[in-house]
């Protein structure tokens, strides 16, 4: 058993260690070892294509995380207040948003919007001199769709486990509904919202499949990695991968720490 577990950790980390090790390769070809050097880290950061892709990816991931955390929480709160067909409709939509594969979301969004743009662009161009096209905004919109559903499910699970007597106590003490929400409900929901925010951020930052279809002329980091793998990998890409790995590990540790602190008062 012990050996099996050790093997599993080795299995999970061997390819990652390979990427990290090869990012220090001084040769031009990523997988032919020439000697140790850190020059590729410098090159990666002075490559405008990489810094631009990184900026695009961070913009998309941060916007997605904020919008999904807010709208997903609103959805979970709204669902508590409705019954009947409206409830069933939103439940079905929430689960469908999670179950439809990313590739289908990407493709259907692409063809729906491109068709729509072909219809309205001639008028728009004549009237205002600009046209609609796919791009960063479409990636954010498609990511928010999936993550609204994820955040809503997380927040709803938290809402259901919430102690109702706290809300009643607050009302008995003449707090306004808004006051009760800000002082009681929101702090209790915070860990779930934060977890949803982080999930949305990592999902969005890592996503290649949806972005590949709807990003139009814009290039995200995964799209850049994909096209450079096609051209032949240089240690530069391994260096970028290593930096991303270290930052996600850091983020994960911080998230763990914050979540643990958040859990305590509730128990």
């Amino acid at each position, binding site marked *: 058993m012990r050996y099996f*577990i050790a093997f*599993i*950790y080795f299995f*999970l980390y*061997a*390819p*990652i260690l*390979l*990427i990290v090790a090869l990012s220090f390769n001084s040769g031009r070809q990523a997988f032919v070892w020439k000697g140790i050097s850190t020059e590729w880290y410098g090159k990666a950061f002075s490559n405008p294509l990489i810094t631009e892709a990184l900026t695009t990816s961070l913009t998309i991931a941060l916007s997605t995380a904020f919008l999904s955390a*807010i*709208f*997903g929480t*609103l*959805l979970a*709160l*709204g*669902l508590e*207040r*409705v019954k009947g067909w*409206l409830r069933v409709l*939103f439940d079905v939509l929430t689960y*469908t*948003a999670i*179950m*439809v*594969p*990313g*590739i*289908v*979301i990407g*493709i*259907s*969004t*692409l*063809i*729906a*919007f491109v*068709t729509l743009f072909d219809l309205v662009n001639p008028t728009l161009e004549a009237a205002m001199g600009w046209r609609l096209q796919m791009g960063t905004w479409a990636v954010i*919109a*498609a990511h928010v*769709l999936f993550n609204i559903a994820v955040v809503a499910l997380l927040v709803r699970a938290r809402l259901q486990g919430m102690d109702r007597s706290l809300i009643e106590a607050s009302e008995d003490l003449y707090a306004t509904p808004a006051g009760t929400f800000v002082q009681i409900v929101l702090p209790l929901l915070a860990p779930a919202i934060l977890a949803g925010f982080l999930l949305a951020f*990592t999902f969005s930052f*890592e996503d*290649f*499949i949806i972005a590949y*279809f709807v990003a139009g002329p814009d290039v995200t980091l*995964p799209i850049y*990695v*994909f096209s450079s*793998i096609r051209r032949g*990998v240089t240690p530069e890409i*391994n260096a970028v*991968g290593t930096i*991303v*790995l270290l930052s*996600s590990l850091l*983020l*994960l*540790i911080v998230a*763990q720490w914050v979540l643990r602190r958040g859990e305590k008062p509730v128990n």
Partner: protein
Amino acid sequence: MNDKQHSRAVTVALLAPAGVFFFFLLVLPMVVVLVFSFGERAPAGGYAPAFTFDNYLNLPARGKAFFNTLTLAPLGTLLTAIIAFPVAYYLAVRVHPKWRVTMLVLIMAPFWTSQLLRYYAWMMILGSKGIPSWLALLGFGDIRLINTPWAVLIGAVYGFLPLMVPPIYVSLEKLDKRLLEASADLGATPVATFLQITLPLAIPGVATGSMLVFILLMGDFILPQYLGGGKVFFIGNALVDLFLQSRNWPYGAAVSVALVLIMLATIYFYMRFILSRGDRRRAVLV
């Protein structure tokens, strides 16, 4: 404005943003795909209005992609669950509580690094200069791994183990160790204890993890492209080809509709099966 109207306005305001996203990015695109799937390919590529079932009747032309996806995705999910189970069990039951979360985070961490780069690393490891060349040194000549279904399955387990372990871990962590002791005291063999106590309790976790992995595998095209080469391709690869290369949108739309229908049907029957089994077990336990 009276109280009731006010309350209704709040509800609408809460649901409106999500409703807008659901409509414009889920319902509308799905309707467009459904409409397109009955259309014809325009001469220059794209969509031309028509009403024909030809695209659906033509689905068998991509039968190989459907066959590969429908065998390797469930198989990959099953294999991942089988390997994830002992890992989750070990973490939840054997590891000292102080180290549990850290070890679980270490299982999940690889998922947050570039999927593309990790599969690329596997391309090197399974390629002719990787494992096969070491095996050749040991006397096992002529073993090919890359571009075989085996490579895709290894990639599936590698890629999705980080998603499968946590839900199983969560359901096993709640397991009351006294149940195991009681079972042993009553003369049950370890195998019987495992089958009658541990496994039924873990079913919700296994179900959640399997569903997550299955959904992601069914729509994947990077894994088959990198590790299956041109030989082991999925529906996802067919879709990329149909929408971005050959630009046969109506046919691609029909393939998408078929994929979504297969997924929904599979998940529906799977959940029903899991729920009925779970209930029966619970009834037996009570």
